[in-house]
């Protein structure tokens, strides 16, 4: 069965090249891109039904794109703000019986030490990759976390 990789990235300037790179590197994989935290939360029930093989999370994420019927953010989002949205998404998965076993890559421009200094912790099955124009490291980490067969099939 082909691998299902979910990318949560709100910057379209990065999201396009990233998706293109992943699709070129893993042609058999299904790459799904979500661009806001609210979109990710809305997708959670469906992801429980069809568990992805990997979720790549940006850290600084919009709650939603502006629109007249903008969904109201829940209290934890208001309190936690936009700067750590990706970690909230990872935490939601870690607390979810169905999704806690899905590996996560925290893919961010932020230094790992900055995240840890501000009291944030990486998800248990999480892996940290610093954003870079060189996508080799991300590719290697994906290969470590996703069964090779599903990437090749």
């Amino acid at each position, binding site marked *: 069965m082909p691998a299902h990789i979910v990318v949560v990235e709100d910057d*379209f300037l990065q999201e396009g090249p990233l998706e293109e790179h992943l699709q070129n590197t893993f042609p058999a994989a299904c790459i799904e891109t979500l661009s806001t935290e609210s979109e990710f939360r809305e997708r959670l029930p469906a992801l429980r039904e069809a568990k992805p093989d990997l979720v790549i999370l940006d850290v600084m994420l919009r709650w939603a*794109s*502006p629109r007249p019927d*903008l969904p109201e953010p829940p209290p934890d989002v208001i309190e936690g703000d936009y700067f750590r949205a990706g970690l909230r998404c990872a935490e939601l998965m870690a607390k979810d019986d169905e999704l806690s076993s899905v590996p996560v890559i925290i893919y961010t421009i932020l230094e790992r030490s900055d995240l840890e200094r501000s009291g944030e912790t990486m998800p248990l099955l999480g892996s940290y990759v610093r954003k870079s124009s060189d996508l080799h490291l991300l590719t290697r980490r994906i290969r470590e976390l996703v069964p090779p067969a599903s990437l090749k099939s």
Partner: protein
Amino acid sequence: MESVSSASWLSRMVRAALRGEPSGSLDDLVGVIGQATGASSVILWEAVHSQANPAVPSVLAIWTDGARSAPTAPARADSVTLAAFAHRSLAIPLAADESSTPAADGHRPAMAALPVDFLDGGQGVLTLHGGQPLGNEAFDLAVDLLEVLPELCSVVRDRQTLDLVNLCDGILREAEFETSLLPLDRDLLAGHLKTLCEAVGQSLRCADVSIYLHEPGEAEQPFPLVATSSEKSDHQPVHVRRAGVAGQSVERGGPNVEADQEEMVAQLATGEHIWGLISCSGLHGPPFHFTPADLSLLVPVGSLVAQHWSNWLQRRMISAEIESWRRLAAAITGLNKLVADELKRDAPRDELIYEKALSIVQDVVQDCTGAGVHRTVSAGSNGSRLERVLATGSPRAGAAVNRRRKGETSRHNFFAGSVHRSKSQLITTEDQALADEGLDRPVHWLIGTPISVGEKFFGVLEAFGPSREVPANSAQVCEIVGDQIGLYQHLQESLRRLHETRQHLQVTNRGQAEALEDLEHQLVSPLIAATSRTELVLKSARFDSKTELQLRAIRGLCRKASRVAMSAGVFAALSKGASPKAKVEVHGADDLLRMLIAAADDAQMLSNPRRRIGFDVDRASIQGLGRRLVSFDNAFLEQCIGNILDNAAKYSYEQTRVEISGLVTEEVFAVAVTSTGLALQAEDAVLALQRNWRGARARNSTGEGSGLGLWIVDNLMRSMQATIDIIPADERTTVRLSLPLADQTRPRRS
């Protein structure tokens, strides 16, 4: 003798006893018997006992036939009366001798004497006087009436007591009502008590009724005179011994003077505490001596007076406390103002704060004659020690205070040391402890209070005074003032630390700002080169549409990166307190239009195509500037327009347009950027220009933004003598940049 029935005389007696105002008297009662028996006068005797003498008959009531002059009480009982007392039976005179002999005091000879047993156990005799022996009918009548006499005597006495108590109660109530909130002035109270003494004197037929009372804090005995009904002015304070015929015996100024029936004293007490006494003397009417009945009349009056005195003292104490709290509140306000003023200074003057605090303690605490402050000072490896920094005192305690000098740390610090160690308030009234502190009499109390905030200890506040009791609210007042000084010390320390931290932060910020500026310089140059080269490539050859789009996107990214780098530089300069320096030049409509089209193109290239937001420049409105020129710094305006378009792209709804237009007026040329998206509240329009401000809706929806973009734009516009206005209208927001028109005579930039 009237010829009426026994029942009728009984009825008259009862009416006499139960008469309303004024109450019936014992004289009235015996008068009815006199009229019933045809006697010319009647005397009711009672046996009075004293410690030294056997029972002596004493006149209790007397009645004389109306035809005669006012009744006069005999000095002693006649033989018939004495016989009746002795045998407790009827006594009549022998036929030949006494019945025909007028008595020396003007009364006719005794016709008969009949024993009376009072309800309180006392023994009495009723003696009937007249010119003839008592007839059988009259005798029977007398016996009938004597059967109810004891009960009626008791009723009359109770009513007299009640009347007197009511009268006194009325006098004291009047005193209560004289002032509604504050306790009555002591002299006025003494006036009411004098009225009370006069009322008692009138009721008991004595010329001198005096009230002696002491106040808390005074020596209990001898009691000083407070009020008297007497005209005499030689009343001495009295001592009370708990014994005597009339309940108490008194000593006037020294040697024992036994109380006797010519003086009656009742103690004025509440609970176990004796406040003083009320004494009666100078009898001016029969029976010329006090009886147990009189004492029972005086005792409830004494209780009333004692209760009133106790209440008055309580009220006065509460009033004094309220007054002292009021003064404390006012003084604390003054102290806080002084603290605020001193904390503004580079070197706050602790002495002024201490002086003010000590003056508050002395002013507010009753009977406080001196106060002082000890401050903790570092003792190196030995921790800390106390040092006296200030002491004040009134002349009354001058001898004590003079010994307490600034900086003194030797033997007179025991008490403050104890407070230091216990970290709690201590109070002493022990003579030895006071002497150890160098406080001689008349100091009788000393309070030591920690000057602290939480666990932080700064010193000890001391207060002392001469009263025998520690003043009521002194401990609390000292605690409050101690806390205030502690708070001052704490604030002073905190401010000093804050100042140091601020200095450190300023140094750090300056370093960071310089680093940011350096980064900006390093970044901007290559980015400008990258933009120029991309521009050159785009102009020098023709490309397929996809490549051209990529190249334009790269150019847009380079310009955006330049703007961010420049924003970092401006942010760094503003953080250091410096203002951006604009290089203002004059520009025409073409320059402006070119810049706006390039900015709109970049914004379009960097906008997410899925959201389909369009950026349009209204060329005609920009060209409306005509031949007039506008003053601005090109790089700054590019920066401003870029930031505003970034915001528009960030907060616009999908499938909307961002319109860039121009409007020329007499003085300015305004560039307006209008977008449709998340609504900005009208009251937030000005706030949006503040550093780090983010609108609630933007923060809670997209969550993006640092709140720096518009702040930087505002500062850049100011540096060009230009202005920015934000005009929200529901979901449409217009940001207007107003640029000054240049002098037409200036040459246009080539």
